[in-house]
């Protein structure tokens, strides 16, 4: 079973809009999303995305099962983790690099649970959160693509997540969408 994990931070709302609004309603791979929240309500973020994609978007509920056609969003103040059986768990473990939810926590759990079945995208952001998790996914045989730091609103996060991997893994938003579609159809 395949899974897409996406991390976004500063500037991420617009990038997510561009990325996700192009996916068809029958997109066959479940998507898990961590977006750093400035504060408060993840419900706002879900509502915002809801009007911009044909996929079902909702805040994660503990132990729900991932499903094709769904984007499960990490709730504010909770880490989101993927289990081997395809359910998700939440935790309020300490923030990682000041972030909860944290990209690293989601990515590392996905690497452990789904190994080479993971496609990971890292979008714009000012944090280095996600770099270690992305490395864990590469080590487990999964694929990591990052938003081109040149065109990202804030380049720090995609640049950090790129690690030592080469230019082929740096893509503009429309090419990232293409990668998602390719991955689903593989």
């Amino acid at each position, binding site marked *: *079973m395949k899974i897409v994990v996406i991390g976004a931070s500063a500037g991420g709302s617009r990038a997510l809009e561009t990325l996700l609004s192009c996916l068809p309603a029958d997109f066959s791979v479940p998507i898990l999303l961590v977006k750093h929240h400035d504060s408060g309500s993840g419900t706002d973020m879900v509502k915002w995305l809801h009007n911009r994609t044909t996929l079902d978007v909702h805040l994660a509920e503990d132990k729900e099962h991932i499903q094709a056609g769904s984007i499960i969003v990490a709730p504010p103040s909770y880490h989101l983790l993927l289990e*081997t059986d395809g359910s998700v768990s939440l*935790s309020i473990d300490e923030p990682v690099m000041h972030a909860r939810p944290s990209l690293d926590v989601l990515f590392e*759990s996905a690497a*452990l649970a789904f190994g080479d*079945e993971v496609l990971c995208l890292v979008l714009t952001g000012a944090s280095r959160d996600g770099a270690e998790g992305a490395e864990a996914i590469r080590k487990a045989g999964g694929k990591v693509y990052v938003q081109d730091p040149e065109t990202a609103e804030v380049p720090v996060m995609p640049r950090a997540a790129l690690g030592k991997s080469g230019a082929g893994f740096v893509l503009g938003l429309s090419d990232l969408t293409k990668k998602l579609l390719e991955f689903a159809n593989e």
Partner: protein
Amino acid sequence: MTSPVPRSSQDVNNLLEAMTAQYGYDFSGYAPASLNRRIHRHMQSFNIESVENLKQIILKDEQAFADLLRSLSVPVTEMFRDPPFFKYLREQVLPWLATFPFIKIWHAGCATGEEAWSMAIMLHKAGLLSRSQIYATDYNEEALTTARRGIYDSPLLDTWQRNFKESGGEGDLSDYCFQRYGSLRMDRTLQQHITFANHNLVTDHAFGEMNLVLCRNVLIYFSRDLQNRVLDLFKESILPGGLLCLGPRETMRFSSVADSFEPVEHEWKIYRLKQGFQL
């Protein structure tokens, strides 16, 4: 499911079995993803190379086991965490509690105790504390020691005040906690109505005849099977018509006890034990 089983999972199972056999702590029903993460973080901070290694160490060394236990527990909490939830309790639940001659409340998984202290403050403000008994339990003895002592770091006061105000609390929170030498000390008179006790939800028994049970952000650490067992324990502990509060992202929807409860408040996951369902 075709997903690969992580290579270390057998080692982790062996470790968990050893912990149960030697010390009576059973983590086999915990949700693997966060449990694995905490085990690996513990190994990093104690410079232990493998899970197998960790197992050997804790089998020989009780102190090493205590260290691991501490790493596995996540006693993260806050005074009046989720203010709108406390507002709901204040406005909707306290008037109902007031109809009882004696009030029993259980905080399961209370961590360092802030939630129990918050409850005591609310009950006191409503004039109900004198006939209330709060039980606050956790398996983390170190967290319980902090809870009992009721002394916290002063810088927390700002967050506490904000949460208290947002929860509709009137007056000043500092009526209930005193600043001294950079720390905050909770009012002793509240404490007479709180019993902090060691209790393990996996292995220990039900508590009797509760009007209200709060178990927030604890079930997220458990797999569905263990969640069901613990929810059963709560069902046994609650009086017919009594209330159970879970964390805002936790649900009873997938559970075997769902039929025995009816939802009272959806957003804050408050459920009522139906009348005919007590043993």
